[in-house]
């Protein structure tokens, strides 16, 4: 991890921070959390625009911050894309990028700036001022400027790339396009990249790993799939958008552990980490809820079949969001279906349906009083 970025930040005011993260060279780490969770503050601390009360920040084997040491932003090799891009309105696209190359001779600045702009697909727009560029083009200039700063001319790994909600101000079509471009471009970048976002889909699309931040605290780190489908506790589960949250008790018979829930026995995909008799909280991801055929007959091989009544069905684009109420417990359960499936099964409020909870999609979490 000598070439990567590592940061531990602690303070109680003005924004509470209790966070630690690491990002290896070539890795993209997403800093995810609701607004006000301290994501931007963490990023600004890494950039040197803000000084945390305590902690340590190191990058590429160089210490940027620790007790008694605060390296100013100018001396950290940080390429930063700001939320509103912060392009300088009086400079052309080329001069904005050249600003990050100020230490080079003038001719070298121009040559290098043009190269970075070309890599960001901005050929021909070098002399435009930010006011004459679209939002997406401005974002590309900002990215080119950040890369010019973070990556040395010889292509050697050196700094870190920080992206503060870089797609938030774009319309959806442009956002998708630029996200895909970044996904492609980042594979050629030999430096750590930290992306701040509140969008879980964006994290899933772009990040190798993510850190979930809440009230300045890093709650869980891991691959996005892992954090999103296997949250460490019920609070995290709620933060990442799970609604199918329940409580139950682990029961075990001869190595065949199962979950006791509302008087019924649910199969589990793998042996739980909890001993029989332990109370747990658990979730089932929406994609782990299957709608069973209407002419369904009970079979031994079925996974956790349940009877329910449709409470609401809302079509969102190609999918229908279905809210169920379980027949015997009156607990809510939600999942989504392709529109044509919903139509074929005549999913409408009041309809009786049967669903199956896939054993693999059931995830157990430690017991907590509040449930998050």
């Amino acid at each position, binding site marked *: 991890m000598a070439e990567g970025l590592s940061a531990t930040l602690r303070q109680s005011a003005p924004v509470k921070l209790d966070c630690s993260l690491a990002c290896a060279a070539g890795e993209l780490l997403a800093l995810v959390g609701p607004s006000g969770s301290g994501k931007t503050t963490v990023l600004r601390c890494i950039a040197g*625009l803000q000084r945390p009360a305590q902690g340590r920040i190191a990058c590429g084997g160089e210490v940027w911050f620790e007790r008694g040491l605060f390296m100013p932003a100018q001396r950290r090799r940080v390429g930063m894309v700001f939320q509103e891009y912060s392009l300088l309105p*009086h400079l052309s696209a080329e001069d904005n990028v050249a600003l990050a190359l100020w230490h080079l001779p003038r001719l070298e600045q121009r040559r290098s700036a043009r190269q970075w702009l070309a890599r960001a697909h901005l050929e021909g727009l070098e002399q435009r001022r930010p006011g004459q560029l679209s939002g997406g083009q401005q974002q590309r200039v900002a990215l080119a400027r950040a890369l010019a*700063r973070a990556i040395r001319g010889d292509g050697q790994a050196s700094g870190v790339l920080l992206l503060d909600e870089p797609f938030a101000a774009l319309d959806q079509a442009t956002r998708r396009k630029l996200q895909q471009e970044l996904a492609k471009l980042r594979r050629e970048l030999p430096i750590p990249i930290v992306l701040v976002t509140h969008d879980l889909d964006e994290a899933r699309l772009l990040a190798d790993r993510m850190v979930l931040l809440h009230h300045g605290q890093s709650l869980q780190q891991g691959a996005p799939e892992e954090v999103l489908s296997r949250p460490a506790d019920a609070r995290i589960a709620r933060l990442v958008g799970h609604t199918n949250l329940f409580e139950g008790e682990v029961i075990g018979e001869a190595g065949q552990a199962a979950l006791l829930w509302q008087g019924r026995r649910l199969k589990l995909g793998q042996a739980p980490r909890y001993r029989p008799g332990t109370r747990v909280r658990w979730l089932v991801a929406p994609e782990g809820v299957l709608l069973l055929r209407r002419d369904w007959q009970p079979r031994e091989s079925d996974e956790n079949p349940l009877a329910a009544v449709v409470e609401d069905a809302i079509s969102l684009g190609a999918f229908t969001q279905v809210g169920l109420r379980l027949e015997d417990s009156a607990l809510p359960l939600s999942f989504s279906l392709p529109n044509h499936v919903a139509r074929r099964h005549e999913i409408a409020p009041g309809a009786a349906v049967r669903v199956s909870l896939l054993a693999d999609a059931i995830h157990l979490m430690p017991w907590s009083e509040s449930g998050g």
Partner: protein
Amino acid sequence: MDWSALGLSLKLAAWTTLLLLPLAVLLARPLAWSRFAGKGLLEALVALPLVLPPTVLGFYLLYALGGNSWLGHGYAALTGRTLVFSFDGLLVASLIFNLPFALQPIQRGFDAIPRAAREAAWTCGLSPWRTLWRVELPLAWPGLLSAIVLTFAHTLGEFGVVLMVGGNISSETRTVAIAIYDRVQALDQEGAASMSALLVAISFAAIASLNLLTRRIGRRDG
């Protein structure tokens, strides 16, 4: 036409503008960007010349710069010249009564620079000094331009303070505004009229060109 009075007015205006500009930039940045105890009081103090009668300001300056004051005394000991009734003293007075005219537009200019623009420069590795030249001054340029024109034009037209501190000494402290007063007192309507017309023309040209330039900058950054 009193050409020496016009020359003196232009010289005073040029020196005032030249010296006041860096001072105002230095003062305007913390006033625009920092919060500190006593900021409101400092702003009020700096704005005082806007509202005080020039005679009141001139009266205090006469005392502050006079031979009995430490400032006047020290200056005389250092240079062998007095501050009152001299061009030097006129310049000091001019710097003080023009401070709000230079400071306020510049402060508004810096106020309008988003913090993120400066932060972008810092993360690009620009030192505070380089950031001042490459980012802050170009972005605050309309404010600087207003300050230059207002200071220059206002110095040309100042009467009360100049009369109090400088008196009316030909080629030393007699500015155009005072020369006009002299002409009127001497019932020389024609002399007064030509000098007044010239002052109107210069002031109008200055402000008109300021508006023109400001509009051009607005288009550039738009």
